[in-house]
C-alpha cells in the first residue's frame, strides 16, 4: 500500500508539471516528482525490524573485520541509500538552473505565464 501512495505523489507532480500555466508551478511539479522517486527507492531497501547500516563495536567478531551474522541478517540495504544520496544533491543543482532560467525569462517578458510568452514571439 505504501508503494501506491508513493506513486500517487509522483502522479500529483506529473499533473502539476503538465497542466499549470505558471512557470514556477511547473518547476515545483518537477521537484515533487523528484521527492517521490527518492522516497520510493529508500522504501525498496527497508527491512522490517532492521538496523541502520553503520557498524559499531559489538558487531565486529574478530580483529580482521568480520561482522557478526546477527548484524548481517538485520541490517537494511545500503545500495539504494548510496544512489539516493547523489540524487538529492543533483536535484538541488538542477533546481538552481531551472530557477535562473525562470528569472531571466521574467526580466525579458515581465510575466511568468507561458501562454502569453508563446504569443509574443520574441
Amino acid at each position, binding site marked *: *500500500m*505504501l*508503494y*501506491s*501512495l508513493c506513486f*500517487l*505523489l509522483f502522479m*500529483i*507532480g506529473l*499533473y502539476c508539471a503538465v*497542466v*499549470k*500555466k505558471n512557470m*514556477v*508551478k511547473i518547476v*515545483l*511539479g518537477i521537484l*515533487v516528482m523528484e*521527492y517521490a522517486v*527518492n*522516497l520510493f527507492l529508500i522504501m*525498496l531497501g*527497508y*527491512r*522490517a525490524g532492521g*538496523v*541502520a*547500516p*553503520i*557498524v559499531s563495536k559489538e558487531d*565486529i567478531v574478530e580483529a580482521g*573485520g*568480520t561482522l557478526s551474522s546477527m*548484524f*548481517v541478517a538485520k*541490517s*537494511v*540495504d*545500503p*545500495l539504494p*541509500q*548510496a544512489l*539516493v*544520496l*547523489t540524487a*538529492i*544533491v*543533483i*536535484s*538541488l*543543482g*538542477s*533546481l*538552481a*538552473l531551472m530557477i*535562473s*532560467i*525562470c528569472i*531571466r525569462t521574467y526580466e525579458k517578458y515581465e510575466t511568468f*505565464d507561458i501562454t502569453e510568452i508563446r504569443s509574443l514571439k520574441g
Partner: protein
Amino acid sequence: MAILYILMLFILIAAFIAVETKFLLSSVICIGAIGFGASIMFLFLRAPDIAITQIVVEVLGLIILIRATISRDLTFISGDREFFGVVVSLVIVFVIFLAGIHVFDDSLPEFGSPVFAETEGAASQTYIKDGMKKTGAANLVASVILDFRAYDTLGEATVLFTSIIGATVVLRRKSKKLLEEIDK
C-alpha cells in the same frame, strides 16, 4: 509502521495544497513541508545519512525558491489551461494510477523484505558482509559511494559542476563596453 502511513498522508496533503493554491508563496512553503516530512520518513526507514542530507538541501532549496518568487509582484495567475485539456489530463493520470496500483502492490516484493540483500551472491549481500573487511570503513554507505561505486560519485560531481556553470552563465549580463569592442 503506522507512523509511516501518517507521515505519507501529511506529505500527500501538502503536495495537493502546493499544486492547487493560487498564491506562489503558499506553494513554496508547502514544498518545504513535503521535504521536512520526507526527512522524518527517512529516519524511520533507517537511513540517517539521507535524512541529514535531505533536511539541509531542503533549506537551501527553499532559499533559492523564495529568492525567485518573493520580489516579483505578479504572484498569482488565474485559471489553468482550457477545461477540455484539464479533463483529459485528469483521466489519463487516473488510468495510469490504476495500472500502477496493480504493478506496485501485486508484483513487487512485499514491503519490508529487501530482495537484493537476501539473495546469496547479490551485490548488496557482498557490500554488507565484506564491506568492512575490504575497505575498513564503519559507515557502509560511505564505503559504497566512495570505494565500490566511486565512478558514480565522479559523475555526480561532474553534473553538479556543469549545472552551476550553466546557472552562472545564464544569469550574467554582458557589459556594454565588451559589446562595443566586439562590434568594432
